[in-house]
């Protein structure tokens, strides 16, 4: 089982890369929508654009959840005969899993305001 997915440092940090990509995407879309006047009609209590942001967040959550599941499986797997690379592999798998958990929390944090705030309202103070 354990030799199937080689863990590299790039792979371990993949969940955080997904988070970064998500943040850049939603922020860029917001900038584009407001500068270029994208349609903001309301559907089911939220603007079309807010729904678009929710839609963008779903694959990000999906990928991080998948990485979490992979890491969970590999971090728990104990091979029958303990081999030299096992502790190293467990550290890497566990770290990917935990980073995926942090990434999910961070993506959810960033997506929550989409349900609460209208787009393109400038600050008011």
């Amino acid at each position: 089982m354990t030799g199937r997915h080689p863990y590299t440092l790039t792979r371990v940090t993949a969940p955080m890369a997904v988070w970064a990509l998500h943040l850049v995407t939603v922020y860029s879309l917001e900038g584009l929508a407001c500068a270029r006047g994208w349609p903001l009609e309301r559907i089911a209590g939220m603007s079309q654009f807010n729904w678009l942001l929710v839609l963008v967040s779903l694959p990000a959550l999906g990928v991080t959840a998948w990485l979490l599941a992979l890491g969970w499986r590999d971090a728990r797997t104990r091979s029958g005969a303990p081999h030299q690379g096992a502790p190293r592999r467990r550290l890497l798998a566990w770290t990917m899993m935990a980073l995926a958990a942090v990434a999910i929390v961070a993506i959810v944090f960033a997506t929550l305001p989409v349900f609460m705030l209208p787009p393109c309202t400038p600050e008011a103070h």
Partner: protein
Amino acid sequence: MTDPASHSPADQVRLAHLHRVWANPPGLSGTLTGVFHSAVGMRYVHTGLAFLLVGGLLSMFIRLQLAWPGNEVLDPDRYNQFVTMHGTTMMFLFAVPIMEGFAIYLLPKMLGTRDLPFPRMGAFGYWCYLFGGLFLYSGFLFGEVPDAGWFMYVPLTGRTYSPGMGPDFWLIGVTFAEIAAVTAAIELIVSILLTRAPGMGIHRMPLFAWYILVMAFMIAFGFPPLILASILLEIERAFGFAFFEVARGGDPLLWQHLFWLFGHPEVYIIFLPAAGVVTTLVATVAQRPIVGYHWIVLAVIAMGFLSFGLWVHHMFTVGIPLLSLSFFSAASMAVAIPTGIQIFAWLATLWSGRPRMSVPMLYLAGFFFIFVLGGLTGVMVALVPFDWQVHDTHFVVAHLHYVLIGGMMFPMFAGLYHWLPLASGRMPSEVLGRAGFWLVFLGFNLTFLPMHLTGMAGLPRRVYTYAPELGVSWLNLLSTAAGFALAVGVVAILVDLALCFRHGRTAPANPWHAGSLEWAMAMPPQPYNFAAIPRVDSGYPLWDDPELPRHGGVPRGLLSDASHGQRELMGTGMLDARPQQVIRVATTSWAPILAALAIAVLLGFFIAKAYLAAALTLLPLLGILAWWLWTTGDRNAPARIEAEPGLWLPVQAAAPNAPGWWATVIALLIDGSLFASLVFAYFYLWLNAPAWPAPPAATGPLLLPLLAAALLPAAAFAGSTALRRSDRGQPRGLRLWLLLASVAGAAYVAAQALVLAWIAGDPTGHAYSSVVWTLAGFHWVHVAVTVLISAFVWARSAAGLVDAGKRLEPRIAAALWRYVAAQGLVAWAVIHVFPRMTT
């Protein structure tokens, strides 16, 4: 039975060889030419402390001026200069470089190696840091001191509002000094990944190395936006391009985005190494392994990423839509998770261990107290409405000093006291150490705690005085008085540290009973660190084998034979740390300091607007760099070397994981980040432009650009073919194809220059033309550098120094051609395709 640590006559001979090969020459020339990591690291620390004193002196003047309303210690202009230089010095010339100095000094010792893999680059970085700092301060000599704040916001720093040369001294001096951060990042990453002692798998690597690894990657991605912004602003100021000037299609907020894309990660770039010190010391003080190794690794990586998602929280008041602000507010909250994980891991370690209130522990306690308070006010200002209230007030001054002094300076002092016996062989004075701590701790809190109140009362930042009616006069007086206590404390600590080198009592072996490898060596360390490279099978080698310090000086084992006269490091696998290669590194050389001096002269000519002289200075600079490259490492090394009896390993030029290869990869990542920042600038300027391209610039016909673009894949193909020819043992083929790649690259530059001269418009006319010419010029510089490197590999091949076995240099040239082609295609598509898609 003989004592394993006693030296036989054969050992004596080997030790003499090691000394001869690794020792620094004596005297001034040794100081100027030495490249060994201990010497370079110490230089960083000494210079950083000197800049701490200068920056601190400036802050004393600031506090005197603010002690009472209406004071006239500094006039408004001088006040602005001092505030700017204080912030700039502390951030760029003290906090970042001194932590790099710690890493450069300590890491090879902790990793069980002899030196960093690029000793000359390390020395070069230091000289750039020193000369950059002096360049910045030379503004005082010319009466042209930067005065627009450490973040240099436009339009205040544009030519209209800052017609003097103050901003130029800042932009050029700071960018010059930043070369040090970039070279240190490359060197530290490669060192951590490739030169750990055999057996030190990634799962038992010291946590300090994890912290430095993440910090170095953060520098790789975080510094380029500021470097790019500085280049753009300097081009705008020197040559009249338009990036930030609204009247010509620029946008001042572009500066803020680029600055804070650097500026927020910068806080963590400062904090992470300090947290690495805390983690190392906490385990030692508690005399037990750190609780939650996995959790800390997780927290460090998570922080490294999340800290890049916070930059807009410095821009809550500039008019960005609320929803956008909330994304960054969310990330600012999320970063509290990994911070919290670390703090709980540290507390759990102390709780379950047997901590003793030693001087380093005292500073750790101070760190916990102050940093947690700074973190909490950080969560407060991460809330958008609260930030609106306290933005640009002394509340933020209080917050950032709690974070930076608490999070960086207290761990730094703890670390200085902790590793002082290692560096000096002597123990610091308990009495002076404790007195210094209490002065600094009380002085700090009494200086900055009142600023929370004065800030909430409305005392603005960066203003040279305030009205008595504000009711904050007494609090300011308290801040000033306490600030002087803090200053006395800092001086007392530095005097204590300096005295220790001469008068401290001799330190016993491993005086703190630490578990990490640096304490397995002589105190102060030998110039070669370890007489034989140790093998490691534990996260705390000294706790598992307390005899290790006695064995560390015995020259039996890996790389203990230096009779060949070369400096050698052991190269090991990135994850498993199995021996993979022998790395022969460069020794003492004038090249680093001369190269840095040439850059200083070039920049001096540039700021004096003597552009021709600046361009001519490129010639000696390129000559020095060529000489440096030609003489680096051991160009005549055999392809395989016996690391210990029976263990034959390839030398780096013949190894797949050569440090030079990975340094190239990291350098290209950094360069890619710089390029991405420029592409970001292009799209940012496009976003709010009414017409793109802005007339008179136009898109023009696509045919010629299309024909030109075909030259880029051709260059990449030629570069790769050159490598294949070299691999087949055809040096003439290698040289021919390198020549063809260079011709294709140069032809592309010429063709694109023609096209742009036709369609892109005057670069000083509009932001569109400015950014298009800059994008193209950025790529042309890369083509030019790759042509030069191809010429270098051509010469190496002609001299018979490159062959199918030693393929590192053609491999790097081929990779550069692929990279340059890819970058060129992206720039080409942005310039020629994107405007067609939007019109």
